[in-house]
């Protein structure tokens, strides 16, 4: 019985982890939707514009954040170390600077809510009407 309940807890934990879903959010004044390719291009310095032509201001969560890892797994397919190497090459060849890093998902949400052209990603549970969900990768 004890073993069974441990299993049950593990299962529930497993389910709750699987339910953690990351969504791409934008400023309410920005475009209503964006494709996975367009998000990837913005986060890998290949494009600097949103689908409506507005200048994109991407935000990134700090390294080691679980939502950040889920996002990059789904969108850029790159690990933290690979991203670091990629951006140091971009910086030193004068091609660009990495997205600004933001400490928490709450701060990410309020930055996206208050910055025109901004794009970020948060756990779907954190979404409210201060930001607009533009892609569910």
């Amino acid at each position, binding site marked *: 019985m004890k073993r069974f309940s441990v299993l049950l807890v593990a299962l529930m934990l497993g389910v709750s982890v699987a339910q953690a879903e990351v969504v791409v959010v934008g400023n309410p004044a920005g475009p209503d939707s964006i494709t996975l*390719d367009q998000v990837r*291009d913005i986060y*890998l310095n*290949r*494009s*600097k*514009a949103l689908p409506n*032509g507005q*200048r994109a201001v991407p935000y990134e969560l700090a390294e080691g954040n679980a939502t950040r890892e889920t996002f990059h797994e789904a969108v850029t397919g790159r690990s933290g*170390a*690979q991203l*670091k190497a990629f951006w*140091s*090459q971009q*910086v*030193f*060849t*004068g*091609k660009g*600077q990495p997205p*600004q890093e*933001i*400490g928490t998902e*709450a*701060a990410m*949400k*309020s*930055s996206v*809510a*208050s*910055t025109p052209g901004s794009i970020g990603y948060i756990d779907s549970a954190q979404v409210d009407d201060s930001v607009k969900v533009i892609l569910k990768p």
Partner: protein
Amino acid sequence: MTRTYFKLAPLALCISAAPALAQSDAERLDQLEQQVSSLQQQLTSAAADRVRLNGFFSTGYATASNDAGFAGINDESEVQDLSLMALQGTFSLSDDTQAIMQLVSRGEEDWDTELEWAYLSHQATNSLQLRAGKMRLPFFMYSDSLELGYAQPWARPPQAVYGPVTVTSYVGADATYTFNLSGSSINTQLFSGFTDESSATSGNEVEFRNTVGINTEWTDYVWKVRAVAATAEVSVDSRLLGQLFGQNSFTLADGERGNFYGLGFGYDNGTWQVVSEVTRIDVDGPFYDTDSAYLTVGRRFDNVMPYATIGWLESKDDDERAGPLSSVLDRSRDEYSLGVRWDVLSGVAVKFDYTHARGFGDEPGSNMNAGSIFAENIDSTNVYTVKIDSAF
């Protein structure tokens, strides 16, 4: 009756409103807190965004089995030969316009600081970037990160291809157009300018006038194909040849037409890395014309990447020269390297490299120790390198 009603109504309102008010207060407080934290972040980031500083540092030790002087390395070499420290500043004038400078101090030049980059960059549209100032000549795949060892797989770029062009910078302007396809992109760069450099090590004066070039690169972010062509009026005054002829310097080229062609290929799927470049230099008059190529294959095992490189260099116009000119300008050799790049920490890589070069006994070229090679009848050399590259 009415009086009681009026007395009770506000009371009732108060009672019913109190919890709602308390809730919206908490919500507003929450919102305000978020706004303050976001504003604070924007304030600090606004200051941080205007000026960004990055740097890179390398140090290492290299030694060779003899005095052939491959890559300037003899059998007694000093640690500071491979050391350099660079500081790069990016100053944002607006969202689209930046001033960028890079200062490099090299150990082999007594840590004298040189300004390698100083340019303005303007993002005219999402796909068009314009730059003007002092920049790297974009001849090679690794031109932009020529001294940034951390961004390279090797301990040093293959000398067969990167060695013959001693000029690395120019003053001018370029325009880069990026065309994004679904899953791949094409990048085309037009550049034009001039170079006037005197080499501290060789004492050569090199001038490129009216340099014009184009390079274009297609990549799907795993495969990469690149082509470059450039032309310039080349002037070279050689101090080494001057000494041989008993003069101050000898004019090797005086406004001669010089052309550069290159083809590059890259593959990187995260596990395997393959890089190859083929280049041709063509200069009118006695100055050397060379064909060269290299191929590097590396395989990542977690944070360790062993690599192997083969390289080849040959001057194609030996029959146009005789005497001392031939002994300094004719060049030919094969290069074989085995090495390991080990990413010790995030931002720090240690590299070990063994390079064997041979077949240069009769035609060493001016960037090796021709004197020692002829005097000691040297035809091959082994070079051992340990290097630390970091970026921050």
